[in-house]
């Protein structure tokens, strides 16, 4: 069941509830892909949520912990990869929406948390 859906340009951002998981998909537009700076931003944001959050790029076999900066950096997802996010827990929906937004907005600088 789709619970949230927006269009930005030609890219579909989508979140849905899939069993106990909330999942989302977003295209990585960042010019250099999931390099150090985006990885740090994604990890920091993921850590604000209680939910277990996993991500993978381009339908890789393994999901990785979105709260592990070493693993997110090691993703090395290139530009235009599809990043999938899944989360489990009370704030899973908010977590997936926030992370999809972060990637869709191309990792904007935000104020101190």
């Amino acid at each position, binding site marked *: 069941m789709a619970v949230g859906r927006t269009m930005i340009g030609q890219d579909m951002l989508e979140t849905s509830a899939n069993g106990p998981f909330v999942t989302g998909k977003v295209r990585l537009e960042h010019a250099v892909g999931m390099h*150090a*700076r985006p990885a*740090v931003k994604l*990890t*920091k944001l993921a*850590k*604000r949520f209680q939910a277990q959050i996993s991500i993978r790029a381009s339908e890789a076999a393994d999901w990785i912990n979105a*709260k*592990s*900066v*070493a693993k997110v*950096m090691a993703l090395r997802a290139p530009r235009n990869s599809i990043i999938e996010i899944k989360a489990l827990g009370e704030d899973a929906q908010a977590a997936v929406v926030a992370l999809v937004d972060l990637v869709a907005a191309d990792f904007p600088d935000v104020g*101190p*948390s």
Partner: protein
Amino acid sequence: MNDLVSIVIVSHSMDIAKGTADMVRQMVGSEVKVAFCGGDPDGGLGTNVGRIMDAINDAWSSKGVAILVDLGGAETNSEMAVEMLEPERRQRVVVCNAPIVEGAVMAATEAAGGSSLEQVKAVAEELSAG
């Protein structure tokens, strides 16, 4: 905020120490306190126990301080500096076995999420774990 683990960077080179601290501030943000030291008083390469102690005390957080070092003497002098701290601070300072730049960025990222000193050290050391 004083409830996040702080980071201290100890290099033989002041340029590397400062550059690493700049990377942490720009990539992770300014919520995690970062102090650094490096070089000898004449502008050459080296590390100094007194300066390392000053950096630890500057960065002090009740939640602890994680030190990232470069080569040999930076590690032994950092360990010596920790030994010479006040006893109640000594227990809350660790030297991480991690590459200085990558370790500092990852440790600070983990610290920014409010993690414990033990978790911060473990994340920094993930890269060197076999």
